[in-house]
């Protein structure tokens, strides 16, 4: 039995079932949708047990990896069990301890880094020279500086958007619309790319199994 061809046929039939929704809702689409959700759930449970829980917790605790058991792993193990306490209303409060640890670790780790990466570095990036950079450099830098300032003015609500403030806010919303337009264009490209990927699969992987070579 050729498992590769069976896999290709399964993928192709399920793809067509899912695309059939574009015509209208139908039992084939529902079947494929439910199959996808069910299989995904099962797949992730097993994947996490063998690729996360076993190597990072069980093997460390029992010493299956390097031969030396690490009994400190009991602590995260207990916290992991606390997360499951949400399923039992009487002891659901225990899960807050585990969540507090996760939130605390995340905040401590990324608070300063996020500020540095996404705020300070970006501010630094908008402080640009307007002289000694040539004509095109001047225009480029001016657009960035004016665009950032006007964009920020649009979100300044303590003063009515009238007069100079209104004009700056108007320029700001124009800049924002250009940015949204660019994002929309990229989103369209991404969606079409996914369609192209599936089309290539159907045309160049599935059809040849029926002797049709394009």
């Amino acid at each position, binding site marked *: 039995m050729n498992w590769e061809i069976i896999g290709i046929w399964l993928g192709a039939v399920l793809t067509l079932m899912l695309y059939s929704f574009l015509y209208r809702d139908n039992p084939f689409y529902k079947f494929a949708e439910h199959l996808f959700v069910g299989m995904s759930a099962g797949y992730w449970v097993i994947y996490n047990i063998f690729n996360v829980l076993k190597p990072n917790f069980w093997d460390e605790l029992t010493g299956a990896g390097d031969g030396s058991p690490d009994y400190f792993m009991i602590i995260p193990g207990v916290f992991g069990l606390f997360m499951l306490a949400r399923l039992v209303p009487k002891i659901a409060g225990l899960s807050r301890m585990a969540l507090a640890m996760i939130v605390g670790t995340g905040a401590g780790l990324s608070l300063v880094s996020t500020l540095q990466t996404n705020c300070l570095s970006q501010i630094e990036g908008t402080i640009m020279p307007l002289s000694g950079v040539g004509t095109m450099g001047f225009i480029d830098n001016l657009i960035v500086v004016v665009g950032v300032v006007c964009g920020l003015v649009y979100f300044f609500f303590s003063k009515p958007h009238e007069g100079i403030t209104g004009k700056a806010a108007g320029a700001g919303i124009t800049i924002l619309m250009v940015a949204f337009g660019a994002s929309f264009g990229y989103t369209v490209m991404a969606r079409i790319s996914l369609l*192209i990927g599936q089309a290539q699969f159907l045309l160049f992987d599935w059809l040849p199994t029926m002797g049709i070579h394009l």
Partner: protein
Amino acid sequence: MRKILEKLDRVDRRVIYLLMALSVFVPLSLRLSYPIPVGEGPSRDLFDAIEAMPSGSVVLVSYDYDPSTMPELQPMAVALTQHMFTRGHRIIAMALWPQGASLSQEAMTAVGDSLGKAQYDDWVNLGYTVGAGVSIVRMGSSIRAVFPQDRDGFPYDSIPLLTRVQSLRDIDLVISLSAGDPGIHAWVMMAGDRFGLPVGGGCTAVSAPEFYTYLGTGQMLGLLGGLKGAADYETMVREGRENAPAGLATPGMAAQSIAHLVIMAFIIIGNISYLVIHKRRKGAPK
């Protein structure tokens, strides 16, 4: 004219779907190909950075995606791997997304075998690690602590490629192929800004605008955005190699361009139709 526009205004959405499908399937079936000119830009910057590194440099490639975004990111992975191997660089693959570990193995094995590169000497796949930012910070002091063994269970210390690689500071370049979070953002934040490593990347087109800000500030040295970025890179890798295969992304660009033209046509017709009908109804009682 107005009647035609009114009809277009009420066109069944399934007609639009059909035209979109035709705009993708027909060019692919006919194997149309458009030239892909690659000018200055983030794709070229990443290519030049890899080109400028001395042979034997160690590049860490993080496969932070899963099969749902394969059409965009796997061609990048293949083209980048081809380029790095032909330049004599060594690759350490890892993944912050569970299924990235399998996709990296697929790309590394295919390209490595075709170019005669040996696993453990020229490349290694460390597999998946949970924890994203936490793991990257830990790798800053010890990669072995995060990956005591590779994806196949081979101990870290017995892998020849890793004998001189103790921490992120021994890596020459980090490349994250990212479909979301965790991905480029975590690498820029932890490896780039915290440890000062040069970071490049490839991402889905949806998330490309988000990362352009990192290019402007120099936090990233190059970026491949979506299928176009992958096709750009394939084109650059093929420059000077007339008989080289077209790659995975390049054949899709004709379909991509025609589909974009169809969408643009819909947008223009939709707006004209809206304006004409709206103008006529302006005086009508509400």
